[in-house]
């Protein structure tokens, strides 16, 4: 009898020794699955520069559609000064890589306007996440659109922490506004540098500049684009600067520049381009998958 009692106790101990740790393991695994989970839907959010409407990227998108042969659908959002959202277009069912263009009624230049626009972008963004339930996305910003996206990333994205940005490409974004100086920082640059530690650590950033001559694309000084390194370098996972010269490199032509479209396809949309079109820079290694347990 006494022996039996010991035996049962042993069985109980073994069961507990297996059961209790497996509880903790379970909790840990589930949170891990949740944080690793990616929705099939992964839109590219496009923000045009100052004085541009939600139709700013139409030429670019037509080009992209023609070249990629995948029918990226387009949803356009216009944010009024009151914060009211107007949607045109739609995300087609089954299209997991749509474009979402966010434009603003107040699309004026200047420090305070850009800050307001970032706040409006956040409004639109939250509404989009609520409607379409995506948890990762990429961004394309032209000119001041890049500034709006940068401010948004630093100031507002932390409020929707479960949505992870993957790639940001800014085209001719004047991180130091119109200033050609390499030493004087304008208000917006100061602010971006101050908040840079809040940038998403896993983000990959490409800053594309166009130059007509050696110093400017006609509107934005090359030096101002270059100041982006003080914001992103050593803060995000990768920061790459690319300068495009040749035909169609004036500031407003850049979004439909052939070279830049290829850059967008290769880096932002991560298409596999045919060899002749590929822009050969460094090959980025894919992150190896974490060691997953096989399904039972």
């Amino acid at each position, binding site marked *: 009898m006494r022996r039996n009692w010991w035996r049962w106790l042993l069985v109980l101990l073994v069961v507990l020794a297996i059961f209790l740790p497996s509880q903790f*393991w379970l909790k840990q695994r589930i949170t891990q699955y949740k944080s690793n989970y990616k929705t099939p839907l992964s839109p590219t959010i496009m923000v045009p520069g100052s004085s541009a409407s939600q139709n700013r990227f139409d030429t670019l998108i037509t080009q992209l559609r023609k070249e990629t042969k995948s029918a990226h659908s387009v949803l356009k959002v216009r944010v009024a000064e009151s914060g009211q959202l107007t949607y045109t277009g739609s995300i087609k069912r089954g299209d997991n890589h749509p474009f979402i263009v966010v434009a603003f009624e107040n699309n004026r230049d200047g420090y305070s306007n850009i800050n307001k626009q970032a706040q409006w972008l956040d409004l639109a963004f939250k509404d989009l996440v609520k409607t379409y339930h995506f948890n990762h996305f990429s961004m394309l910003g032209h000119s001041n659109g890049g500034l709006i996206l940068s401010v948004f990333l630093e100031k507002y994205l932390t409020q929707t922490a479960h949505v992870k940005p993957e790639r940001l490409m800014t085209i001719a974004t004047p991180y130091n506004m119109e200033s050609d100086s390499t030493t004087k920082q304008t208000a917006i640059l100061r602010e971006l540098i101050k908040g840079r530690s809040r940038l998403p650590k896993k983000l990959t950033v490409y800053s594309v500049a166009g130059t007509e001559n050696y110093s400017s694309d006609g509107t934005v000084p090359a030096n101002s684009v270059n100041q982006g390194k003080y914001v992103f370098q050593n803060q995000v996972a990768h920061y790459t600067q690319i300068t495009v010269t040749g035909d169609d490199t004036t500031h407003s032509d850049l979004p439909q520049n052939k070279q830049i479209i290829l850059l967008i396809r290769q880096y932002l949309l991560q298409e596999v381009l045919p060899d002749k079109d590929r822009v050969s820079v460094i090959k980025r290694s894919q992150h190896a998958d974490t*060691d*997953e347990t096989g399904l*039972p």
Partner: protein
Amino acid sequence: MVGQLRGLWRLNQRVNQWRAMRAVREALRVAYPFILVMALTDVIGQGCLSKSGFFFQIYHIGSWLPGITLWRQALQAVSVVVNGLVAVMIAFTTGHYLARTYHTEPLAVGMMSALAFLTLNVNYSALGQNGPTGSSFLEANLGPQGIFLSILVGLGVGWLASHVMQGLAKWWLRRHQVALSWTSRIAWSLIVVLSLTVAIGYGLSWIGGGGINNLVYLSLQTLNTNLGHDGLRILTMTAISNGLWWLGLIGPIDVAGNSSVTSLQNLAYAVQHGSGWDAPHPVTLHTLGDAYANFGGAGMTLALIIAIWIGSRQASYRRVANQTVIPNLLNLNEPTLLGLPVLFNPVLLVPFVMAPAVNIVLAWAAISWKLVPPIVYPVPRTTPGPLVAYLGTGGDWRALLLSLLCLGVSVVIYLPFVRLLNDAGGVDHAA
């Protein structure tokens, strides 16, 4: 019921009289200690040291055990040798024992049948080519999944070689009035046997790539693809699969290791919605079979072990049960199957197929009536059976209750058959 059990008992007794059955039992008895050691190695290797092992994960062994790669490699070496060649051993022991009953040369015939088994699994496509084009044997077939074939080969070669030897000796004696030398007897029968099996093996290599085993497996796998959500089909498939395990055809229908699209979709749903209720694919082979009908491995052998503890008076059975309970907890049940043996045991075939089938019906009903959610989160293969459903549902206690119910029901199903075997006796069970 009692009458039927009596009938089963008589069948069992008769089958046990057959020379071939006795040879198989004897062969498995000799192979059992080797397989037991292999299984215990696998318990440590797969359960505790492998990254996907259950105990490795819950105890975070990787973070505190020094030199883990070294341990892994050492255990893998043992596992590769013993686990990888178990079928060859069984071919040897079967041929050996059969030859003994014919009173010919047991050792020579055993070696002959091991060689014959190997010739059937030569990688013919890699022969005649220069350079390292792969292994010269189909290594996958030499492990546990080759057991059925090795038994067949052992029996065939044992019979053929014994008869060739005896016939040759008689014929020689009549013709030349002197006895045929030992060497000639062995050599001639070896030539006969090997030319026959090489011819078969080479012929089969024209039909399919993976040798004779692959042929059987491929034909069965076609049944397995696209099982869908039909509970009846899942039930039939599991029953057939377990029947094949009983024959020694281990794992043609891979019930475990299921990483199909449906499971991934279920996981995606659960991650988004927080639980597996209303997952898109509630009834699949994975959510029924893996979760509720695979405790200890195919045939709910964990329940068999408990049934033996409760109801068996056979010392050998109790011994095997005690020795194999730990591998069974990690769903490694080959030693139980070969040690009792469950393989080719007509009495145990019934519960071996019935217990998982009943469990699948129970789980099917419970999931359809929304009493439990289906399992959605992946769990390691070496997770103790009754915990699979609990952990797979993300910690739903109803799933745990259902698991325990399934275990209980299976024990009840196994018990009468285990008791029936109490009357079996004699030398066969003196393991």
